């Protein structure tokens, strides 16, 4: 733990494992994430990437191993505490409030940064700071034009953007993005890639993504997972040149 503050490491996993019965979805992963870096995790379907993210965000509890975020031990922390410490996440499967308006979705995310929401008297939408943070998140994701539309009535691509907007509205320092581009059109996708580039200047991003062009465009570091095991970690160039990785993953894509 002590040496963590010496260098630039913001999140550290030690021997992280998650088993579902006999299946080891995540198997003894040691991985450090540097502050200010875009770190992409790639691997075939079922490699354990989403399980890994779920461990980091507290949605799942690890079977073994530890997770440290700055000076905090996150190993047993619940999702709400992890969020409050400054780790935001977006979901692969759109996870918004369909009956809320676009703005309300970001509103409830933004409101979580109040010291407490145990407030009973003043109307929620009067808090200027909360409103500004929600609107900024909508602007960043190009959703500011229609704040009053019901989330259920938005297009699929817009819902994906809203998913990211909600994460942004919690003002996280570290962002866990689980396939942010899944299901987006190429134009919307390009906007989100542009947004992630911007965010990367001031934030740390951990990204799961299947779109390799996008990954190569924004990631600084790459980790490759397969069958719950971390195959390799390195810079984009290192991974591109790695034999093991080419065989396991990239190679398949080229032949496909």
């Amino acid at each position, binding site marked *: 733990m002590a040496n963590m503050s010496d260098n630039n490491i913001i999140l550290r996993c030690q021997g992280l494992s998650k088993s579902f019965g006999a299946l080891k979805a995540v198997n003894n992963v040691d991985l450090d994430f540097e502050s200010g870096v875009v770190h992409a995790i790639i691997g075939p379907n079922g490699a354990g990437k989403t399980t890994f993210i779920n461990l980091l*965000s*507290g*949605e799942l509890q690890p079977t073994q191993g530890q997770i440290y975020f700055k000076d905090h031990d996150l190993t047993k922390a*619940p*999702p*709400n505490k992890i*969020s*409050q410490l400054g780790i935001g*996440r977006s979901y692969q499967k759109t*996870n*918004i*409030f*369909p*009956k*809320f308006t676009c703005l*309300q979705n970001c*509103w*409830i*995310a933004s*409101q*979580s*940064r*109040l010291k407490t*929401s*145990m*407030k*009973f*008297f*003043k*109307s*929620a*939408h009067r*808090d200027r700071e909360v409103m500004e943070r929600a609107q900024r998140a909508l602007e960043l994701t190009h959703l500011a034009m229609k704040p009053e539309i019901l989330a259920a009535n938005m297009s699929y691509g817009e819902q994906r953007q809203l998913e990211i907007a*909600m994460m942004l509205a*919690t003002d996280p320092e570290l962002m866990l993005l689980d396939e942010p581009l899944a299901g987006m059109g190429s134009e919307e996708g390009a906007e989100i890639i542009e947004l992630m580039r911007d965010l990367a200047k001031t934030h740390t991003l951990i990204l799961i993504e299947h779109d390799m062009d996008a990954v190569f465009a924004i990631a600084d570091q790459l980790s490759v997972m397969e069958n719950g095991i971390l195959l390799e970690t390195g810079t984009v160039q290192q991974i591109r040149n790695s034999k093991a990785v080419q065989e396991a993953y990239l190679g398949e894509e080229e032949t496909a």
Partner: protein
Amino acid sequence: MQKISKPVQLFLLIALGFALWFPSVGDEFYVELLTNIMIIAIFAMSLDLLVGYTGLVSLGHAAFFGIGAYGLAIFFGEMNQFSIWVALPVSMILAALAAVVVGWISIRTSGIYFIMLTLALAQMFYYYFFESKRFNGDDGMFMNAKPDVNFGSIQLMDLSNEHTFYYFTLGILVAVFLFLVMILRAPFGQVITGICANEQRVRSLGYATQRYKHVSFVIAGTLAGLAGFLEAAHTGFITPSYLGWHESGNILVVVILGGLGTIYGPIIGAVALVLLEDFLPDITEHWKIVLGMIIVCVVLFLPNGISSLSGKIFRIPSRIMKTIFRTFRG
């Protein structure tokens, strides 16, 4: 919370106007019946906060109603004079304490387990009063007097007057309604409506959802205690059946009949159910079958309750106007 639409606001204001005017012309029997309906409406609104807004289906809500009622009977039943400023807080605090305990245990579970736990814990309270010799068991308890509503030595209201009690209850109904609208618009309300839709997501946004559910449970229980207080003060007679699961189920029917997650729906549900229970026996001996069929029909054809009719009804005049307009132009 979703904004209450203009037509519904208008409807509620008309209903309030009617309620204010009714005692000056209505039959005594119906004034008393309306008081009864309003008490049930307060009880049902408190449950709507839980079921309709927080997504917690409680089958033990009557326990808090009954505890509010017993609180009044136990501490003040034998007195010939007591102040409402003491009696009302006692009832509400007792109900709140019970809700703190029951809520603390049951919010750890969800779905069917939550239903079972609230049911089981509420039945414990029921059997306690049912068996207790001290509180007359299933014979119930009587009230000697109505609470005094005094300011210093000046009497503000005489609750032994049926009309005064009616207006007193109406005032509390309006206050509870406005209170619920207020907390649902406040940050707290945003969080619990979010929990109702998707608790996992709310937690991942950084909210300690258990705490919000617990607070919602306690608020709902306290308001149910308030309704129980009114019921005990109104009828002057309390039995353990007030706490029973039959009563819990009944109030759930009122909420569903009127419309979950609307706050005003339960008022409509209370009016509908009590009036049906009053009129149907005049028509047929087998009125419970008819009542059951009506409830089934509402659930099947108006899944959002009777209150969802309002939107449909208010659209009819505008449609007629449009048709007339078109015919003239054509």
